[in-house]
């Protein structure tokens, strides 16, 4: 199979897209935020339960492509148990990784996020990967306005 193709559609991504983790709503008082990509119609809702500055639980719902679904699924795994500050740091790490800006190549810091490194070769797909992260950030901050990629 084409290398570029394999680089983008890594097994972990395919697997998470088919069986997304934490794909469920969270009841109040958890915060929720909605994200929307008007270019492709992808929607995502991210729920976060933040207590004592720590993300106790995080989940998502919505529909989108394999990249966006896998990104949200992996994100929920990564964010759980993180402090607000750590979550914010992860957001920037991920953003830099998929936009190819000074990507952090330390596998320990990237963890599972590393599978999304191939996205930066596909400018048209970067927003698919980042929408859920922008939405999670809004949920953590308690922002009410829906998040749009445009």
């Amino acid at each position, binding site marked *: 199979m084409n290398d570029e193709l394999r680089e983008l559609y890594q097994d972990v991504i*395919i697997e998470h897209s088919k069986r997304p983790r934490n794909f469920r709503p969270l009841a109040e008082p958890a915060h929720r935020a909605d994200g929307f990509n008007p270019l492709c119609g992808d929607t995502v809702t991210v729920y976060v339960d933040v207590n004592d500055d720590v993300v106790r639980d995080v989940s998502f719902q919505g529909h989108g492509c394999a990249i966006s679904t896998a990104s949200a699924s992996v994100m929920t795994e990564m964010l759980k148990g993180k402090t607000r500050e750590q979550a914010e740091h992860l957001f920037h790490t991920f953003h830099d990784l998929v936009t190819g800006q000074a990507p952090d190549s330390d596998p320990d810091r990237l963890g599972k996020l590393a599978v999304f490194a191939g996205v930066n070769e596909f400018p048209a797909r970067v927003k698919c990967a980042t929408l859920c992260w922008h939405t999670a950030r809004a949920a953590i901050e308690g922002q009410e306005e829906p998040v749009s990629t445009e």
Partner: protein
Amino acid sequence: MSAARGQRRSGSEDNVTMRRGENVLSFPSASPAVPATARVFDAARYRADFPILAQSVHGKPLVYLDNAASAQKPRQVIDAVALFDSTDYANIHRGVHSLSQRATAAFEASRDRVQRFLNAADRKEIIFVRGTTEGINLVAQSFARTVLHLGDEIVISALEHHSNIVPWQMVCRERGAVLRVIPMTDDGELILDAYEKLLGPRTRLVSLVHVSNALGTVNPVGEMITRAHAHGIPVLLDGAQAVPHIPVDVQGLDCDFYTFSSHKLYGPSGVGVLYGKAALLDMMPPYQGGGEMISAVTFEKTFYKGLPGKFEAGTPNITGVVGLGAAIDYVDSVGLDPIGAYEHELLQYATEQLQRIPQVRIIGTARDKAAVLSFIIEGIHPHDVGTILDLEGIAVRAGHHCAQPVMQRFAIPATTRASFAFYNTPAEVDALVTGVRKVLEVFA
């Protein structure tokens, strides 16, 4: 790179010639009887006219199946535009110098060309605009805004592109009018009985897509115009997806307005045409004010020009209009009847081949379709399909195709759309099918 390289694809590459009404390739299902005089359509010959097609993308020969979004340009159009810009370009009308007169002659010759292409009764019924979207907005802001009153109605269909929805919502909101929508069946055909019921004393206009960009449905516009006219209601046809595939005769159809874009007809982008019956255009106020559309201006009062100048404020896309004329010449030299017949064969072949893949579901199965194949693959988002096909050199469109209500009707977020032109070949359909199988492999 040789012009022929883009065609080199598979074992059937040398055999891209098809006869009208007959499959000269060993297609899986034979077509009905072949007329003895069947004309040979030499797709390979025409394909060589399109320099952009002879390239590789991601190391694979480009397979361009995004023609419904924008068609590619033949050398004849590219050369005509370059020649005009190199020898005759200047601002048109009112110029006393030679270049301005030559540019005006070329520009106005394109108007004559479009008049013949649409079989309009008079050249002044041809208004140059930026594209189909502007054509519709012109009718909405000039015609509809004038005739609509509180409680009046405009009828559109469930198949419309956003450009034939939003301009009407805007003017309806402003005038307190109501937008009514003709429903469609699960096959993507408009329900004519429901249409008939929507036509009433408050209906001021029917605005209808001729060929659906999302599904390929060819609407029975002749019949629909007759029914609207029986109630005295004028009809606008959005012909963006129709003119590249179907000969259009606005007098034969008796439509009141017809609009299309140059870039879907192998011409430059940023230019299009609005046809309107002179009697209607004459009563309509100008759409935009400015130079070119006036006969005399003082600070107290302005006298507008007659048709078509009244609707052509400002310096137009002069080169684009000249390019459109060249594109129409080119399409005429190939012939819309043979083009339509050949594309029909391609569409049928592609439909049959894709239907053999159990995970594929074709969206839009109307009896009368033109050159568009929209489909979904079970469990795989169209954007992933589009990316994987791109890596195979295949350009398709993945998304809602600016027709979100169509997607909502089928309860899907998006489709993958392959759309064909006469320069596409059966070997390219095979490449698409192979690409779709590859998508399934990636997600296996």
